[in-house]
């Protein structure tokens, strides 16, 4: 586990979910270049911190995706008053280009937020979240996670064995299909046997005797409570000031001027604090770590 991950692992999954959903949610519903910029920056750094190596492979895909999104809007949407040029007799307008850019950065940042999810929400954390809603669902999830790899392995073993016995080795499609079906049936029979034993094991350990508690290793600490409250307060403030400062811009037919009044500025600052503080903290911790490593 890297140093950055460790910082996150100290937080309760609910806190992280809260952080990501608020950052993502506000960005999704507020078309504003400043907000989108914040969101993109926050998501970018966050992803970089969470999963270091994967990011570089995905950056080209991500850029292409954004460019295509930015290009598609003006090509297909011809509203707006400022005509830049005509393409095949269709107007390409400045407003459409602006909207396309804003839209693509919004989609891009959502994409980045989502990319960082698997790095954070490992099986344990998902179960922790799920368990808060329904302990039974969490248990089923856990059991499935154990069972599926076993089932696949059993199927592979059976297949190997049947091949060794010289059965279904022919390349004829029908024969192979038949063989696979047989193997599937055999593995499923095995699965039934297995599930019977599992049921025994569950009963032997008192499953269904009384109300289950849900044990998870993450604790909701004071830091988590403080962070969640801070995020909630800031989020509410942001939303209020977005409304009051009309920070959500209109692009058609004429693009609004970028709202820069006190109220909208407050919204920007609040949002920036929400979505940038955690990534910056992580980055700072990392830089400090690097420096410490170099000094040693």
């Amino acid at each position: 586990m890297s140093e950055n991950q460790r910082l996150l692992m100290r937080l309760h999954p609910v806190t992280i979910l809260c952080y990501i959903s608020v950052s993502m949610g506000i960005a999704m519903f507020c078309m504003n270049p400043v907000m989108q910029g914040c969101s993109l920056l926050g998501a970018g750094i966050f992803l970089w911190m969470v999963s270091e190596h994967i990011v570089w492979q995905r950056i080209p895909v991500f850029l292409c995706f954004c460019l295509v999104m930015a290009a598609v809007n003006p090509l297909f949407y011809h509203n707006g008053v400022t005509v830049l040029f005509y393409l095949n007799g269709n107007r390409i307008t400045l407003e459409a280009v602006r909207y396309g850019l804003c839209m693509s950065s919004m989609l891009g940042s959502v994409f980045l937020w989502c990319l960082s999810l698997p790095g954070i929400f490992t099986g344990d954390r998902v179960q922790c979240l799920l368990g808060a809603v329904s302990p039974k669902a969490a248990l089923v999830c856990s059991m499935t996670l154990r069972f599926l790899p076993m089932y696949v392995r059993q199927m592979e073993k059976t297949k190997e064995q049947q091949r060794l016995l010289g059965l279904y080795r022919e390349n004829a499609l029908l024969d192979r299909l038949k063989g696979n079906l047989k193997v599937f049936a055999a593995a499923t029979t095995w699965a039934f046997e297995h599930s019977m034993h599992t049921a025994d094991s569950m009963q032997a350990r008192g499953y269904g005797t009384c109300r289950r508690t849900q044990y998870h290793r993450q604790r909701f600490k004071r830091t988590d409570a403080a962070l969640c409250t801070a995020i909630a307060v800031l989020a509410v403030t942001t939303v209020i000031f977005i409304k009051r400062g009309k920070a959500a811009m209109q692009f058609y037919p004429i693009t609004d001027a970028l709202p820069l009044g006190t109220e909208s500025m407050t919204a920007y600052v609040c949002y920036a604090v929400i979505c940038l503080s955690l990534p910056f903290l992580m980055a700072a911790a990392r830089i400090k770590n690097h420096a410490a490593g170099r000094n040693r």
Partner: protein
Amino acid sequence: MELYRIKHLTFAYPDCEMSAQRGDMAGKGKPVLHDCSFQVEEGSFVTLCGGTGSGKTTLLRLLKKELQPAGTVEGMVYYRDRQLEEYAYGETAAEIGFVMQNPDEQPVTDKVWHELAFGMENMGVPSEEIRRRTAEISAYFGIDDWYEKAVDELSGGQKQLLNLAAVMVMRPRVLLLDEPTAQLDPVAAQNFMNILVRLNRELGMTIILAEHRLEEALSVSDRVIVLENGLILHDGTPQQISRSVRETEQVYEALPCPVRLYRTLTAEAEESEAEAGKERHEAVPLTVTQGRRWLLARYQLMQAGCMQAGGMGKEQPVCESRHKVREEKAVIECHHVRFHYKRSCDILRDVSLQIKRAEIVSLLGSNGSGKTTLLHVLAGLLRPEGGRVKVQTQRVSYLPQQIETLFAADTVGEELRLVGAQPSARLAKYRHVHPFDLSGGEKQLLAWEKVLACSPELLLLDEPTKGLDAAARKVIGERLRTLAQAGVSVLMVTHDIELAAAVSNRCGMLFQGELTALSNTRDFFRGNRFYTTAAARLSQDLFSDILTEEELSAQCRILDMQEKYREDHMELISGQQK
């Protein structure tokens, strides 16, 4: 205090459609348990011993309310002065712990920590308490290091340890274990037994252990109950059991080597003493250490190696039942085979091996040494990365460790028809039964029939005796001998040292992906001090060149006879002098 009191317990599985279909006598309401009565004292270590189908699993399950099989029960099971039936369902779930045979089948959840917490979650224990108890138990069992891991990543031994810990964390008063070490390799099995002993000695945990072999269990248990065909044959301390088990009984094969040796050598003396109305007070040696001490005392071998001085040990192996390999033609050869799986280090580094016709070669070695991988390479399932494999025959058969993977059809008849064979007389009555519904022994039989159906010239075996009782192991040994005599070559990887020593022509050890010490069986075991048969360990430094129990007892017999001859001779001389 008594924890369990079982009174005249008789149990029969219901006469269901299935058993009628099987045409099996056992299914027609014939009792699996007959009038069993015994008590279990709190804090005792009781071993239930019996072969496959002796009813020990059924008996064990009847002792836990949640696992009681459906069927007709007569007699009573008292648990702490109340009948087990009177307890509410789940009331004793935590108090009576149960560990199953197959380490893969007990875990319910995907993570080690969750598995430990599972039982307590069911009991509604609050989170903080669960945290405390899992911490305590993982410290006690030493599972901190893999606390975060997925259950699938663990080795068999670790899994079984986890299963035990997951039961222990619920703080049971009594532990019921159904052949917990049958599926483990010897090292892991020994480790597991040590922990059981520790639980018994340190915490006063009552333990009821079902086992089909007594090598490890006999010396550590307070009491042994021998079951055969649902009847309690013997019930007593290990010493009493070692004396009272008759040689004709199945369980005799399950006794440890020192006990059997003692019995063989003292049988005549005991008989004559019994006629004279005397009773023996000498303790039966239960462990190798005790056995060595006893042998030393018996033959007054005060110094190591003095037997050689007397010229006794130099004699060639007394009985050599092994067949000879005559032909030089190799059935399979591999040269400098290398292999590694994706994202792992080399499993096989440089393995060269040659198996001749009608030869049995055994490969021993610890888990993860690449034994199964080598078999897969030789069977053609995996392509070696370096080196080459030359198979001189078309008919190669492979018996996997998990024999269920051999079965892919719906009935036994269909199963064998697929490989072009007819069921043998013993399986004929199960023609229409699903392979998974067969008993353990019958499954084994079907697997062998299926594998042998193509009349193979080369047989690759992956731990053929894993989890089998003494009788079944003997059958497999015999079968291998017959096959080799018929000209079949056999390569088996096994943990079963006794089997390897008894049947193979050559043995080798696979260690870290390299084949070491591949040589004549006798030479191989002569070079080993630790990794060798019980008989060899018993006689180390006392007699040279002992491999099997028969050899050892024959050697001792010769000594006895010489001693007797000397005594007679002395008497004669003294008589003449008079």
